[in-house]
């Protein structure tokens, strides 16, 4: 199959009439059709996509004119169902669309399909999806990572030139590393979350999974900035995210010591060490730096995240939308039965943990304590970024694991996020860039930037990408 051109080039050709949006949509739908065995997608929306393509071909315009894309199924989108891969939202049709998709569409992009995920984005492998497990593009006996596993697999399989994901504890970067694509988590607040099904609101961010850093930067440029429908949004960089300096020489880079000491798989460690050598050869000033509280981020996350999950999932009560049990005799039973039958095991687990850590008598000891350790993590990042332009390390200690290898023990699954969650707790932008392979499986390098330093981070990542 012929690969997709860079996004800017596709759009340019559509605007000039050299390419037709309709042909691009057909190409994407054909790729989807021929890769069904990977279960990367939950649904397609061919009717709406074809209609939009026809409209665009009438008067092609926009920075993403005619570019097909795939959204994780926790983005509200017109043209089909939005389920978040959960039983409780099985029949749900979005009454409005997410701002992120609206902004992409306003520049001519076309959403063709919705990608699989762990239900409500709770997981690291797509094994918590209430539908099916997505298979790794290079080895069907393995997981693609998660929770944006369908999006990462879709991009790796070239089903569309890019996909959208969400990252609450690593859900863009982990599958990007596993599948060998670029996965970008912007600074917290940079992309509106209006119309995206909430998981943990103090750490949820939206970002692209793409084939190159350049494409990721263009997508971010289109999606980012304030939105009156999401009051947590921040202003975008006045210079945008596309004019980026690829300079490596002279940059001060800290290798996060704690991440290199975490029991990395030898293949992963070797790729990361080689990446460090490449950056050194390109003139970066690299040294090890200690951020001793970073390994605590996972424990903080597994208090803060379930707390916010228990609150955000309370809206699924079977009364206004979503699955509603027909067996209830009264209102209370209707709530309980709808939630019991509609939620999967991981959602229930997180609701229960969250309810516990927020309940009277335990709040100070768990929730407040976690949020205070969070401050410590933020302070360590701030101090490090006084000295360094960027921090680097592995995305995760492992490559894509076998389907079923971690499903028996929730804690083992949680540990896959041990090196990604800190940037979520602090809000810093972070990226996974394909860095090499270990036993034929992709390995990403994680690069973390200072708060609101997205433009600089993307530039450095582009420079690194050129070295690999």
């Amino acid at each position, binding site marked *: 199959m012929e690969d997709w051109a860079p996004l800017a080039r596709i759009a340019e050709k559509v605007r000039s009439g050299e390419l037709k949006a309709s042909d691009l949509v057909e190409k994407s739908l054909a790729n989807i059709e021929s890769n069904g065995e990977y279960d990367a997608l939950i649904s397609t929306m061919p009717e709406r996509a074809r209609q939009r393509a026809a409209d665009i071909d009438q008067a092609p315009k926009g920075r993403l004119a005619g570019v097909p894309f795939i959204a994780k199924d926790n983005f509200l989108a017109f043209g089909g169902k939005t389920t978040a891969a959960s039983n409780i939202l099985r029949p749900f*049709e979005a009454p409005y669309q997410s701002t992120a998709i609206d902004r992409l569409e306003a520049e001519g992009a076309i959403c063709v399909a919705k990608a699989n995920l762990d239900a409500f984005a709770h997981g690291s492998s797509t094994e918590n999806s209430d539908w099916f497990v997505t298979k790794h593009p290079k080895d069907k006996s393995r997981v693609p990572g998660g929770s944006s596993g369908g999006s990462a697999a879709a991009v790796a399989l070239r089903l569309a030139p890019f996909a959208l994901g969400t990252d609450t504890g690593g859900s863009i970067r982990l599958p990007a590393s596993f599948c060998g694509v670029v996965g970008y988590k912007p600074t917290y607040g940079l992309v509106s979350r209006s119309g995206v099904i909430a998981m943990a609101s103090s750490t949820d961010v939206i970002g692209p999974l793409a084939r190159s850093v350049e494409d990721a930067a263009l997508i971010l440029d289109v999606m980012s900035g304030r939105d009156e429908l999401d009051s*947590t949004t921040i202003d975008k960089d006045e210079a945008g995210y596309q004019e980026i300096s690829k300079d490596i020489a002279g940059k001060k880079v800290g290798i996060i010591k704690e991440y290199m000491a975490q029991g990395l798989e030898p293949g992963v460690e070797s790729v990361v060490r080689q990446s460090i050598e490449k950056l050194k050869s390109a003139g970066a000033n690299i040294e090890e730096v200690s951020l001793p509280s970073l390994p605590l981020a996972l424990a903080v996350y*597994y208090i803060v995240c379930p707390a916010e999950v228990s609150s955000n999932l309370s809206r699924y009560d079977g009364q206004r939308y979503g699955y509603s049990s027909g067996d209830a005799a009264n209102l209370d039973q209707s709530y309980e039965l709808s*939630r019991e039958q509609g939620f999967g095991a991981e959602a229930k687990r997180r609701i229960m943990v969250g309810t516990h850590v927020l309940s009277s008598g*335990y709040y100070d000891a768990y929730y407040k304590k976690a*949020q205070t350790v969070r*401050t410590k993590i933020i302070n360590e990042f701030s101090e490090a970024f006084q000295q360094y332009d960027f921090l680097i390390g592995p995305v995760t200690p492992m490559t894509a694991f076998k389907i079923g290898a971690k499903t028996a023990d929730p804690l083992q699954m949680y540990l896959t996020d041990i090196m990604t969650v800190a940037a979520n707790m602090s809000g810093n932008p972070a990226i996974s860039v394909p860095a090499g392979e270990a036993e034929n499986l992709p390995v990403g390098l994680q690069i973390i930037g200072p708060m609101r330093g997205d433009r600089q981070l993307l530039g450095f990542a582009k420079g690194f990408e050129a070295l690999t």
Partner: protein
Amino acid sequence: MTPVCYTKFKSMSKLSRDDVLKLAALSKLRLSDEEVEKLQMELSEILNYVEVLNNVDTADLEPTYQVTGLKNISRADEVKDYGYKTEDLLKNAPVVKDNQFKVKRVL
């Protein structure tokens, strides 16, 4: 800052069956016996794991609830048309009557 009571913290790491049932009731979840037993074990394990935070010195630090420093984003108190249609907002409801959500009787 109020000091955290560590002795109490330690003793609550293991959840009893009754604790799990109480949490389920607070969470409006009806659980099967099998689920209760499994969650009792899994929740205890997760709570044991997060106890590592107990040993972290956080004296003089305040909790962080929001990372960008934004405060009180407000707008004029006016009805604004975002193009949402009532029938679209109601189309996912299990039961609708007279353009309203119909639920089982409350009182």
